[in-house]
């Protein structure tokens, strides 16, 4: 299926995860901090889910915390980094707006520009880094699928012994951790899990303190839903089965879209290149086309696509991601492929797209 959501997982839950979710409402409702038998059962189920999630993400179980409000993880991870506020805060120009918004809480912030392919300016990053810097970089961008060279970035950050926060919400389990990192952020929606479950990882030995009000030593509010956490663990287990084969298939479909659009439609900006994007996302911007009309025309044909253009957003502002890369911000559509996408859906889309674009350009 081609989905309009930002996340691959804004898509029906995996059937097994759905069943677990329903069962868990019967079994995992109790407060795991209480010593009742129901509490112990909830605690055991939760411990299993945490172990499963940690294993699937190749993390240690004591490095992860589950959060019920995933969008808060990156801001809290950055806020709790050593010296945040006074220390230099460095972020990429195409980070999510929740992360860019943290500059308001920092006395010195530095935005690192990206090139037209969306790659972070590594020279500028290296020059800007100081020993107490807090760096926030995404593993991949949710609008364009463009991935960052985390290996090189981590090397520059470790040379200064600075804090490295990685936003892995777009890549999810498709993320190859660099050898150095401090905090990580995942969202269960990226692996077809439910909304409302996020994973905050703090590398063992990394310095971080919980910036939220608390009286006992704790890294998270722990007020997430246990049934959702169990469903998230199950969805992740199922998502990673055959992941290599699935990703290879999606990558070839995305390449088909990229090549067909290049060959059949003039004046189009395709974000990033085949080597540095996620296998499931492609962002296309067509000159002299209204996104609103494009999304509507595709909807009529049965395709749901998202758009980063201002005319389909609630604000008048165009996508800061496309703008930072110097790409067209209007006429934008984002195709997000799920594991279950059929080759025939892409064939149909590609057969229709040139005609739709030329008709919209005539108007």
């Amino acid at each position, binding site marked *: 299926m081609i989905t309009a959501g930002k996340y691959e997982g804004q898509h029906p839950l995996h059937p097994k995860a759905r069943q677990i979710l329903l069962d868990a409402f019967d079994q995992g409702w109790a407060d795991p901090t209480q010593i009742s038998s129901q509490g112990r059962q909830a605690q055991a189920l939760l411990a299993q889910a945490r172990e499963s999630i940690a294993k699937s993400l190749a993390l240690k179980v004591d490095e992860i915390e589950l959060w019920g409000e995933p969008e808060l993880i990156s801001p809290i991870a950055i806020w709790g980094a050593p010296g945040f506020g006074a220390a230099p805060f460095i972020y990429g120009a195409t980070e999510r707006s929740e992360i860019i918004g943290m500059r308001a809480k920092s006395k010195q912030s530095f935005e690192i520009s990206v090139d037209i392919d969306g790659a972070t300016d590594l020279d500028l990053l290296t020059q800007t880094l100081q020993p107490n810097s807090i760096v926030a970089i995404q593993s991949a961008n949710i609008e364009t699928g463009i991935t960052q060279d985390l290996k090189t970035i981590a090397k520059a950050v470790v040379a200064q012994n600075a804090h490295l926060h990685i936003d892995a919400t777009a890549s999810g389990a498709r993320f190859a951790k660099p050898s150095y990192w401090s905090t990580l952020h995942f969202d269960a929606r990226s692996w077809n899990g439910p909304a409302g479950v996020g994973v905050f990882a703090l590398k063992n030995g990394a310095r971080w303190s919980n910036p939220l009000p608390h009286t006992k030593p704790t890294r998270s509010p722990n007020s997430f839903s246990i049934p959702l956490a169990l469903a998230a663990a199950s969805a992740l287990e199922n998502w990673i089965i055959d992941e290599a084969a699935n990703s290879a298939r999606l990558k070839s479909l995305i390449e088909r879209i990229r090549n067909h659009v290049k060959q059949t439609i003039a*004046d189009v*900006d395709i974000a990033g290149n085949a080597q540095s994007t996620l296998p499931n996302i492609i962002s296309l*911007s067509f*000159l*002299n*086309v*209204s*996104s609103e009309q494009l999304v509507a025309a595709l909807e009529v044909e049965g395709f749901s696509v998202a758009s980063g*253009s*201002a*005319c389909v957003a609630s604000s*008048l*502002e*165009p996508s800061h991601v*496309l*703008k930072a890369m*110097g*790409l*067209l*911000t*209007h*006429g934008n559509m984002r195709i997000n492929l799920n594991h279950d996408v059929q080759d025939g859906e892409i064939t149909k889309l590609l057969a229709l797209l040139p005609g739709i674009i030329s008709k919209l350009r005539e108007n």
Partner: protein
Amino acid sequence: MSELLDCRGKRCPLPIIELSKKIKESELGQQVLLLSDDPATAADLSAWARITGNEFTIVSADNFLITKSR
């Protein structure tokens, strides 16, 4: 002498679409003064210039001088 294209009050992507039409009808070297207060215009104008091979300068926040260069 530059021609005036007043797109104030028009939302993205209308200013760029109207500019494209104007430039298509213009002679090589013709200049167009585009007035647009849409927040997407400045960003889209540089992408437009890159794609179409035309040139532009920013005169002020909502004034852009475009030259048909090819």
